[in-house]
């Protein structure tokens, strides 16, 4: 039986998921306890549950899991198609498409272009899908344009060494690709060749031609930083990005803001605890109001918050192995997940982040979180 998709405050996954989980199970559990109750978002993430790599849907206090061929990385919503793609973790050889109208059906699988590996990220707009992929021998990367219905590749736009996160900005006019820049064999997670002088950058591409419109790079004294993850602000022009430092002998900035067509501003490290992020950002999000930027560091067990308007550090929230991060549908609110099964709704404010509600499941939630 097909299940109607309802896009309401509970999110796109809600209808199918609630039916799968069984209303009575969820309701009886909810009824057994006083408030606070699950605030009505639905979340999707890659996860390892009972030792099996796959994905997990979370809503109404329930977890629904499904197996995948291997560990996945970022979930990407295809709102028009009522589907979610989970891209295989680097060096990935699959992407799985989950039909939200028939979540009980096996995920549809597609693969990287010949001789390439996925790196865990993709961006969708209308009938276009971009996957970032790497040549498995050379590490040279590309943004691969695919048909968003058939997933067939249409074009390969060279993008430099080790592309990672990718998103559309300015209403789809610009494709933005974070180039991690860490050169290594793409099929084995060996050490980087060039860790001391990474050529990391963020590229603005014309999504039709692949032409590089602008290349944003860091100063020479920051050549151990790899720009990897991004989040678009509601203005469609401002991108918050997070980095990973390949050298932890000194502190360097780990967060920045990019204004499309203009340039980069770096954000400060946590005040009073400059090493608190442990040289590593795993996920980035901007809240629905566009006032706050949040980022997670699983190595530091810290989610941090900055003011988007003036770049100030506002404060952090400690959570072991936190990584998954998504803005809530409402303003000044984020969701975070951890490798220990935590699911936390956090309120953002001038004093940083604070847990509004904290849940836990028997699951290891992976790097990235999708909220619908």
């Amino acid at each position: 039986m097909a299940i109607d998709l309802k896009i309401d405050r509970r999110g796109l996954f809600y209808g199918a998921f609630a039916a799968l989980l069984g209303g009575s199970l969820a309701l009886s559990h909810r009824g057994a306890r006083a408030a606070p109750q699950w605030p009505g978002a639905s979340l999707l993430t890659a996860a390892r549950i009972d030792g099996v790599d796959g994905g997990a849907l979370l809503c109404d206090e329930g977890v629904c899991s499904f197996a995948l061929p291997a560990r996945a990385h970022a979930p990407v919503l295809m709102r028009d198609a009522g589907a979610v793609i989970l891209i295989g973790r680097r060096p990935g050889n699959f992407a799985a498409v989950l039909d939200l109208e028939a979540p009980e059906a096996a995920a549809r699988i597609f693969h990287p272009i010949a001789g390439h590996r996925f790196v865990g990220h993709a961006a969708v707009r209308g009938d276009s899908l971009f996957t970032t992929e790497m040549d498995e021998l050379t590490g040279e990367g590309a943004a691969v344009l695919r048909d968003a219905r058939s997933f067939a590749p249409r074009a390969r736009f060279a993008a430099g060494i080790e592309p990672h996160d990718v998103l559309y900005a300015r209403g789809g006019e610009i494709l933005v690709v974070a180039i991690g820049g860490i050169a290594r064999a793409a099929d084995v997670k060996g050490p980087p060749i060039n860790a001391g002088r990474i050529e990391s950058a963020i590229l603005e591409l014309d999504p039709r031609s692949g032409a590089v419109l602008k290349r944003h790079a860091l100063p020479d004294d920051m050549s151990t930083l790899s720009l990897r993850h991004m989040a678009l602000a509601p203005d469609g022009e401002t991108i918050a990005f997070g980095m990973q430092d390949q050298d932890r002998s000194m502190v360097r900035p780990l967060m920045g803001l990019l204004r499309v067509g203009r340039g980069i501003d770096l954000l400060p490290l946590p005040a009073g605890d400059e090493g608190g992020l442990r040289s590593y950002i795993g996920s980035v999000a901007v809240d629905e109001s566009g006032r706050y930027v949040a980022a997670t560091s699983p190595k530091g067990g810290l989610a941090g918050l900055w003011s988007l308007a003036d770049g100030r550090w506002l404060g952090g929230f400690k959570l072991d192995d936190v990584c998954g991060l998504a803005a809530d549908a409402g303003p000044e609110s984020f969701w975070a997940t951890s490798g220990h099964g935590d699911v936390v709704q956090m309120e953002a404010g001038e004093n940083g982040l604070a847990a509004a509600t904290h849940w836990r499941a028997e699951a290891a939630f992976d790097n990235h979180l999708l909220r619908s």
Partner: protein
Amino acid sequence: MQPTSLLKLVADAKPAQPNPKAAQAARAVLAVVDRFVIPSYRALAQAADAQEKAWTAFAANRAAGDVQSLRAAYSAACDAWARAQLIKTGPLSLFLRYERFAYWPEARNVTQRMLDALIVSNDPKELAPAALVRDSVAAQGLTALERLLYDGDNSVRLLKAPGRPGEWRTEIGQGIARNLSAIAKDVLAEWTAPDGVRAMIASNKGWKMIFADTAEAASLLLTEQVTAFRLMHDIKLLAVMGASADVARPRVAEAWRSGRSQRNLKLNLESAQAMTRIWAETVPAAHRTKLDSLYASALKAVDAVPADLGEAAADARRRPLVDSARAGIKAVQVEIAATLPADLGITLGFNSLDGD
């Protein structure tokens, strides 16, 4: 898709419960540092120093010098590295020292290409300590030394070649050996100094941006124990074996030129066992016994792997020997992950374990 479980509300109004096993974990991590980590780095520093001296002696009189003495010193350094390389965190993780010590697995034969470029440059400035700290990790370390020492019969001829070519090639080897010795000495010193890693762990303080207290250090070091199995299983075996003998990649095997692939793996496993035994001193006896028994089986299987591990993986007849070693190592890995963290009260990360 399966409904798995319901989320549980965490009573986050209450302060976090103190870890009842915190003292046990703190004692265990200090024992691992004192009886495994520091002795491994001390042995590495000694072997690297001996290797530097061997190159210095060879350089002083190349005509009479014995390349075999360089190979013996390289082998001793590799033995020490196979034991020490399991601990990447702390000083070895700074300044890309791990990668500089042995850049492997290498991408696209880059070590050979960078080494060739260095040889062509004939520029001693490239061997200055400052240059080696700054330059690509590929043309230095044990991986590059192996190229100089085990290029068939050419190695002896090229190193002993009269005039500048032989002299320059020897200077390169000497420069790499000097750099290895400096790295090993610095790493040992930073572990053992009065304000070093060991002292900070003992006094529940933080060290640089690596850890904030003893509990985080314990988690990092136990993570190294677990990650050691990924190195052995995923990188040293699976990547070489491929799905079947006809798609195996013998040249992906570690140190195949010097014939050390199996030996390095065996020393890794023995080293992992030595570390596990220290961690496991306070865990339930049944868990300890099971770990010992799984290690014994894995070591027996690794002993049976031919020295040319990569070639054996590509040979349908000998491949089962490699696969049994892989299965034996996997069994230890699974048991360690299942019992050690919980027995020791040390939480391991999932996302923090392996960046992306």
